[in-house]
């Protein structure tokens, strides 16, 4: 099992979400996040006053998947979240040791 963490542009969320559910991904966690990578924040000036924007708003999605599905999911996120411009985001893949469904106590793939 793997966890895919993807940081994407906010307006791409719907497309990525729809794509993943069509692929059969049953659940995901979505968080509104802020940060910066190569795309930095910037400064706005209005009537002499400065408004610093330090971080860029992004959306983080987290999905736990069977390892076999990972390449397909990565390809899909990459396709859907791409605009070709800076700030399209990153995808991380992390190994997951165990999953437990709290209600039933099921573990492993069953619990995803």
């Amino acid at each position, binding site marked *: 099992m793997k966890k895919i963490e993807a940081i994407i542009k906010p307006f791409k969320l719907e497309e990525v979400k729809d794509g993943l559910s069509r692929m059969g991904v049953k659940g995901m966690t979505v968080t509104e996040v802020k940060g910066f990578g190569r795309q930095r924040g910037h400064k706005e000036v209005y009537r002499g006053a400065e408004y610093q924007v330090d971080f860029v708003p992004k959306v983080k999605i987290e999905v736990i998947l069977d390892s076999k599905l990972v390449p397909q999911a990565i390809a899909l996120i990459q396709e859907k979240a791409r605009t*070709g411009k800076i700030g399209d985001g990153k995808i991380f893949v992390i190994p997951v040791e165990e999953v437990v469904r709290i209600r039933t106590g099921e573990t492993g793939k069953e619990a995803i």
Partner: protein
Amino acid sequence: MEYSAAQLKTSRQQLITLFTDGLNTKSFPEENTALIDQYFQDSLPESHVGRTLLQQGIPFAFIALGGYGRRELCLHSDIDTLLLFGKKVPSQAKTLVQEILFPLWDLGLDLGYGTRTIKDCLRIAKIDFEVLTSLLDARFIGGEYPLYLDLIEKLYKKVVTKKARDLHRWLAEQDKKRLETFGDSSYLLEPNLKEGIGGLRDYHHMLWLAKASFGPRETHEQAFRARLSYQEYQDLRQHVSFLLNIRNHLHLRSLRKNDRLTFEDQEEIANRLGLRDKKTSLAAEQFNELVHATMAALKSLSRSFIGGLFATKKKRSKIRQMPLVPRGLVVDGGELCFDTVRTIIKNPSLLMIIFEHGALLGYALSLEARRIIREFLYLVDDSFRRSKTIINSFIKIVTQSNCAFETLSQMMEIGFLDSFIPEFGRIHNRVEFDAYHIYPVGIHSLQTIRYLKSLTEEKDILLRDLFVELQHPERLFLAGLFHDIGKIGSDHARRGTKITKNILKRFGLTDDAIEDICFLVRSHLLLAETATRRDLNDEKVIVQCARMIGSLERLKLLYLLTWADSRATGPKAWNDWIANLISELFFKVLHIMESKELATQDALSRVEHVKAEVHKKVGPIIERQDLENSFELMPPRYLLNTHPRKIVQHLGMAESLKAKKQANETKSGGHAGDEVFIFESREDKKGNCWEITIVAIDRPGLFANMAGVLALNAINILSADIYTWRDGTAVDVLRTTNPLDGLFVQEKWAKVKEDLKNVLAGRLSLESSVGNEETPRSPTGLKKLARKPTVIVDNESSDFFTIIEVYSHDHVVLLYRITHTLFDLGLDIHSARIAAAADQVVDVFYVRDLEGQKIEDVGRVKEIKRILLKQLKPL
């Protein structure tokens, strides 16, 4: 005892069955109480200890406290009892408790009990008001009645009369705590039926204070009738009964004591109450409206009831008050009231004037005034609603008073707002059934105004500055009040625009004001939706947004309304994250508007004209929708600066390009050749020059290659417009001098085309082929004193591109050298305007780096300037 307990168990089961069948919903709490009472009455005579105590002359009494005392037992309510003794608690008390009370525990009831003497009770009640209030609800169940009477008499004489004011204060503090912990349930979407503001607790507070100030009455009714009108008392009974009924459903559903009405509960209880989904609202939404209306009414009743009790009479300072209050109104203890009722009938506008003065002076209306307004609501008729002076008073309240929120809330509570603006009545208690909106529409609209009013003290200086700059802040407030008035179905912004227009016409506002406010209502979601759903790095998105908004003033209004509306919706609708996105959009739209290039009214009408012309020309060939899709691809500058005839030509060429690319793909087995292009040349006799058009798949260096091929063939570029459509189609239009060899022109263009093909396919290197000869680009041939070449890198004018302006004298390979250098520097030319006048060239390039980002790094900008200038040095 066992028999009585078994009896209780069976009858309780029957009671629950009746309730689930919906047969005794109203009377359940009382019947449930009666069952427990019955148990005590049955089991007491059977009790051995009880009989012994009586024989020994030790009196005792079982007394119901709290909710049990009030006969309000829901299914899983706590049952609080007191075993009362006269002077001393005898040793047998414990056994008595075991005999009588333990079987109730065995039945699974939540029983609480205390064994105390009268003295104990009084002592604790004096210091612990929780105990005092539970004793105020005391009711005799069994044992010696005189003992009970003794307790009550002493309680009132020794505790209540002395502590009434303290109790009043304590309850007010409890209210504050409740508000902090449970929130105002008359607004919240998952209200707490008991402890939330507007919940059953409000009624309990009324009850306790009524008893504390009017003495021990046997029935609630008498206590209340002293301060409530008949109708108000009936309403109160109904609200309490409704809430108890829901609470009972909630207990039944959650199998335990529970007062918080969650979303899932709401859906099911709504169905149990017989509400069904309708076209305009879900059953759960209707249910929610009912609950909120009930809790708001209960809150209002209890506030006015309690507010009047123990009021400290302030001394009237007549001198200060006289000039402030108009005739027909009086100020009493910081509250406004009517002088006499008769004046209202003569002058109904007083109904509005009292609010107006309340708002201006910051005074609340007295309970009596509220009651009077409610009774005289029938005077708010069509002529009242159309009266100029009354409307002006209302607008003044909304736009000028700092207490607009408080005054409008009072208007809403009393029902006056719904009468004055009937359109408002339809949305007042309307609830969005989701986790996003935490307030019903009515209160949300007022909250929006509250946030707008706070703008003058807002910490965010941008918001404050924008607000201060507004030419017509009053339009913002009215838009805040009406922005959600269309929430009676889908597409509420559009629906609301129509409704708002009618209201404002009735109000007699100027056309200009009506247009602005209607615009705000119609577009109040535009910024939030664009910011979260569209690509803000796409210039076209911003330009379209700017065109829809139209003016700076409207942009500011809309930004402020978006802020207030989101804040008033709930914490999920507004946070730093969304704030960042919306302010980014705001600034980008602002910059587009300030640049006065793409989003002016003039630009808008020109683009519309161009689109219409193109449609006329290709109408029969291309479907309207396909054409619209193609327009979507074209950048704003292209649509603005290109003749419709040319656009038609380019559309045709783009079509051919697609076909050619597809053919290539099939030929080469899926591998697309990016080097395909469509080339057209035609003579412009009037201008004595040639116009060549190249449509190709954009890639870095494309334009440099073209310029190079033309230089190779000794053809001068006079001017050029290059654009990249959003699908990556490059459309380049170049005007050139006539080829030197006038006889074999077509052959010459064929060679140019062939050269370009070879260059793009990588078979011909321009680097080595293009000479460095300094042939003047303009045909005058005369070389004037060369102006020093200049390069300006402009990052201010556009949020999307770095603009590089090159001023230099002219020679034939110059353009190739500049564009090739830009390519070497890793810059992608998105669009460009090349113009040569006499021997002076001005080339403007809109560029981004290969990742689509502007070049803002200072070092990088310096480097670009340096290298370009080196290339521009006369050879």
